[in-house]
């Protein structure tokens, strides 16, 4: 069956093609079910194929076809515990979100097209995680960017949605440039882009300087895709897309590609301590920075968007600390609880007729009990409350920072502060949405969502609650599972039991403080007025977009305009036209234009050629 691994990619892509071309005929809801089936089958296959890894099965390389022979790049796939885990997350969470969308997208004009794009995303993401070489990974890397573009700007008649899609793609492309440069360097050094060969030989081939250059360029790619400082700006805007898209692409899967990529290429990062320090630091700073922005949002999806950036910061920090298992663990738990948060938020938005402002919600728990209960589970999970999933995975990352010691203790401190802020803004979100007074429009009739939407919520809630138990300091299930994938990399060493417990207590205390502070502020009747000062700045994203607009976009456009309208027309064209000979010819030719100038040109060429030949013939004797 492993020989058919490519079907994991091919089936969703086939679905995409079918739905994009024939979607109108297939219609609603058949296209939704078709798309969901074409994700469910790969999920089942992935489960069957992943089971042997529990018994210590070997890594598989599946050759499909020779792709670009001149750089030795094949379409060939890698099936090891890491890619298997990623494939399971992508198809599992992805499948649930497909089913959810059957209800959520009900009545949309372009319902089949939506599912076509969703399937395209699944196929692309699976290409990214199953690739066994850099070139094919780059294919997936770019194609998820395409799906993201198509889905963010799905409601393209809204100018803000169209602009957000374009922005996401272009900002991602800046990161992709880094990735591309890294690939050039890797090929020049190794003569191949194959993972196994590059990683096995890296120690012998790369100097520290080269390894640092390559990994920093790879990291530029990761900052784009995984929305890290300074390239995170596209992700808040990406919330213009339908909510299932935010859940699947901009929370659970695509944005984690950078984390996956760094974990996959850890053998290179390991050779470059400077790069690792940069990665960990950028991750920690992003986590803190984005968390402070999440606090001040009024739009429920914007809170979750900044929260995602912040959580991705944790993951990036983890892989930067070479706590690879911890990073992937958090990637997994986050996939469940953040997808759940987005879908539950979507359920709320759906119920409130597209209202996203939390100030216009309140008291919804009585009207949508399932959504409420599942979202509470997600809230506890992301806040890091014992024993839900987020607690385990986040603490493992913080523990790794602590274990590394030295100035990484500073990163640990940043992580702890971020945990406090996270508990605060998530509690704020829950209270504003589900508790307190009804602040909505009297015409709104909130109601629980249909079962295609609530069942996925319940499944995700179950996993968000318990999946953390897979990898606890007592029983390191995930670590053993992933061991073969990371066997060549030295991970950060574990801490003693006492320290682990002490750290866990500290973060639990901090989380409690965060929750209580939020309760104190929002949970007791009158809501505080949040305007001016920090609140205005946070709503504006601290003005970073404006800054980029002023420093990069506007000067860039001005320069391009000058080049196009002044330099190209007056200088380049001017000089070339102005060359004495040409000017003369041009001037006179304009006059002879109407009188069959081309004919004279043609005649001239012929006469000239004949003349030259004649001349050659005449002096032929000389030869």
């Amino acid at each position, binding site marked *: 069956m492993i020989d058919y691994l490519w079907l994991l990619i091919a089936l969703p892509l086939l679905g995409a093609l079918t739905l994009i071309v024939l979607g109108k005929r297939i219609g609603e809801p058949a296209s939704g079910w078709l798309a969901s089936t074409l994700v469910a089958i790969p999920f089942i296959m992935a489960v069957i194929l992943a089971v042997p890894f529990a018994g210590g099965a070997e890594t598989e390389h599946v050759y499909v076809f020779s792709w670009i022979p001149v750089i030795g790049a094949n379409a060939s796939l890698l099936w090891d515990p890491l890619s298997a885990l990623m494939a399971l997350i992508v198809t599992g969470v992805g499948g649930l979100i497909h089913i959810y969308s059957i209800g959520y997208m009900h009545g949309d004009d372009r319902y089949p097209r939506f599912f076509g794009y969703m399937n395209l995303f699944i196929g692309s993401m699976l290409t990214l995680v199953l690739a066994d070489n850099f*070139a094919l990974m780059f294919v997936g890397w770019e194609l998820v960017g395409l799906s993201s573009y198509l889905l963010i700007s799905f409601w393209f008649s809204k100018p803000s949605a169209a602009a957000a899609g374009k922005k996401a793609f272009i900002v991602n492309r800046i990161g992709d440039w880094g990735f591309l440069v890294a690939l050039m360097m890797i090929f020049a050094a190794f003569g191949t882009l194959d993972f196994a060969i590059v990683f096995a030989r890296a120690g012998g081939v790369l100097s520290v300087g080269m390894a640092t250059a390559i990994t920093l360029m790879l990291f530029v790619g990761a900052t784009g895709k995984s929305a890290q400082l300074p390239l995170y700006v596209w992700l808040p805007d990406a919330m213009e897309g339908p909510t299932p898209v935010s859940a699947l692409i901009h929370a659970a899967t695509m944005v984690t590609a950078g984390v996956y990529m760094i974990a996959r290429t850890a053998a290179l990062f390991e050779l470059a301590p400077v790069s690792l320090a940069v990665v960990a630091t950028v991750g920690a700073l992003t986590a803190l920075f984005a968390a402070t922005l999440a606090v001040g949002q009024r739009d429920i999806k914007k809170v979750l968007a900044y929260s995602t950036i912040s959580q991705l910061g944790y993951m990036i920090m983890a892989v930067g600390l070479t706590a690879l298992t911890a990073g992937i663990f958090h990637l997994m738990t986050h996939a469940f609880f953040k997808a759940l948060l987005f879908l539950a938020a979507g359920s709320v938005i759906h119920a409130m007729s597209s209202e996203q402002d939390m100030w216009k919600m309140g008291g919804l728990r009585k009207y949508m009990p399932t959504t409420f209960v599942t979202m509470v589970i997600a809230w506890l999970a992301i806040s890091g409350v014992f024993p839900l999933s987020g607690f385990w995975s986040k603490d493992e990352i913080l523990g790794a920072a602590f274990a590394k010691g030295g100035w990484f203790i500073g990163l640990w401190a940043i992580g702890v502060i971020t945990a406090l802020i996270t508990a605060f803004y998530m509690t704020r979100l829950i209270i504003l949405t589900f508790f307190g007074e009804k602040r909505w429009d009297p015409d709104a009739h909130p109601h629980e969502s249909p079962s295609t939407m609530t069942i996925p919520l319940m499944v995700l809630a179950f996993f968000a609650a318990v999946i953390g138990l897979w990898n606890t300091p007592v029983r390191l299930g995930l670590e053993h599972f992933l061991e073969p994938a990371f066997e060549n990399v030295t991970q950060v060493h574990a801490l003693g039991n006492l320290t682990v417990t002490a750290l866990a207590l500290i973060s639990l205390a901090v989380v409690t403080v965060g929750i209580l502070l939020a309760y104190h502020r929002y949970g007791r009747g009158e809501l505080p007025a949040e305007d001016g000062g920090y609140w205005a700045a946070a709503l504006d994203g601290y003005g970073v977009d404006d800054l980029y607009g002023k420093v990069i976009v506007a000067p860039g456009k001005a320069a391009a305009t000058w080049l196009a309208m002044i330099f190209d027309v007056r200088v380049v064209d001017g000089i070339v036209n102005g060359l004495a000979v040409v000017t003369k010819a041009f001037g006179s030719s304009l006059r002879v234009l109407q009188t069959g100038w081309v004919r004279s040109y043609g005649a001239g060429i012929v006469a000239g050629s004949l003349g030259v030949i004649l001349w050659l013939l005449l002096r032929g004797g000389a030869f």
Partner: protein
Amino acid sequence: MELTLLIILPLLGALVVGFLPKRRPELIFPVSVGVSILPLVASLWIMWNFTVGEAGFQFTEDYTLSESLGIGWRLGVDGISLWMIVLTGILMTLAIAGSKSITDRTKQYMVSMLVLEAGLLGVFLSLDLLLFFAFFEIVLVPMYLLIGIWGGENRKYASIKFVLFTAFGSIFLLAGIIVIAITAGDAAGTITSFDFRQMLTLDLSPTTQLWLFLAFGIAFAVKVPMFPFHTWLPDAHTEAPTAGSVILAGVLLKMGAYGFLRFNLTLFPQASVDLAQILGIIGVIGIIYGAAVAIVQPDAKRLVAYSSVSHMGFVVLGIFALTSQGLSGGVFVMISHGLTTGALFLLIGMIYERRHTRMISEYGGIAKVMPIYAGIFLFMAFASIGLPGLSGFIGEFTVLIGSYMTLPVLAILAGSGVILAAVYLLWMYERMFTGPVLNPKNEGLSDLSFREIAILVPLIVIIIGIGIYPKPVLDRIEPSVEVILDRIQATTDYQPPEYGRADEIVQPQDVRSEIVGEHAGEEAQGEEESG
């Protein structure tokens, strides 16, 4: 005989169209489309019967026209020219099929197109420099007429500019050809010799090579076009009728790049090596400059024209990287650019026929009114951006990989072209297709007709096909590229970088078994074994 027939077929077609009865004008379009299929089929037949893996020219023909002057009807096809003739065949049929809106002097128009096709095929098949030059110049005439008669408002200026620029280059080319023909004649014991393959045996001094390289190079640089000789292109493109733009971008520009590949690299290898860096720089300037200038163009056609300058920069960079990857990638970009840019011009032509404007600001939100059109346009935009899975990616990616090895800084700069391409195309798409429909003139636009879709679908299929499975194309290009590099290596002291030749790259399937056995301590040893 096959290649002669290939060149003659469009001329025969032109005769048929020319002698259609005057009172049956409705026949001109279908007959023209019909006869244009013949050279397409012939070029596909040649592709089918082309022997893969064989270096050198195939289907060669050699008929002496003048013994003493060493002029001959010499034709041949290799893995590079093969794709150029196939591209010509495909685009010409589609361009003619896309010319239904031509109602003025239709017959002359179709004849011009078919003569143009013969000229283009001749350029790519000639193995005699005088023949090459003749075809190179013949192409000018129908193209001049296409722009000058069936073009837009400013057609006179654009067509004259087009001819003058190219003629300016041609003067140097002719001079260069004559000089080398005399030298070759010396060696062959005739007055002159224009036989390309015989010229390959010449041993020219570095100085002679340099001057001849420049003489040939100027003509080709204008055609490519390379910065700063590109300014004729936006004007010619904007004013040319749709089919003219398609052929101009799709095939005509390739004559320049082809000239560099075929003649400059092989006849003047020392000069090529010496000038590689400078030409690489010019290529990268083209990539970035063309893209930057494209961003702010208010006219959709002009925007795509400047994007051609950018894409052709990749070709130049790839060629002068002087590695297998760079050269193969460059040829692949030539093919892919022909398909995607050709398609974009067809698409812009289709909307122009409906609204009679090319100004981006005149549109907005038309994805709502013309969903199929918008979908195909977006597809072609992404193909042009170089999205993996589509043809554009294969070429540009291979060029970048190939040029980093010899020109690292240039390759890194060229990589930023991937960002700029997304900027200009997606911004244009946003302005033309998304948002609400504000201009009432756009409300009633009809979506693509069956004929229009039928013209675009073959391009979509090929772009996806060679994007996912480029191997058949690359397998034919590569041996011919190797011949060129072999010759450069044999005649100069140029040493390609490690892994810069196709036979040196590490094939994963060969090495992986040995890798699995390697332990951490043996890595260095494993490296020696494979190196």
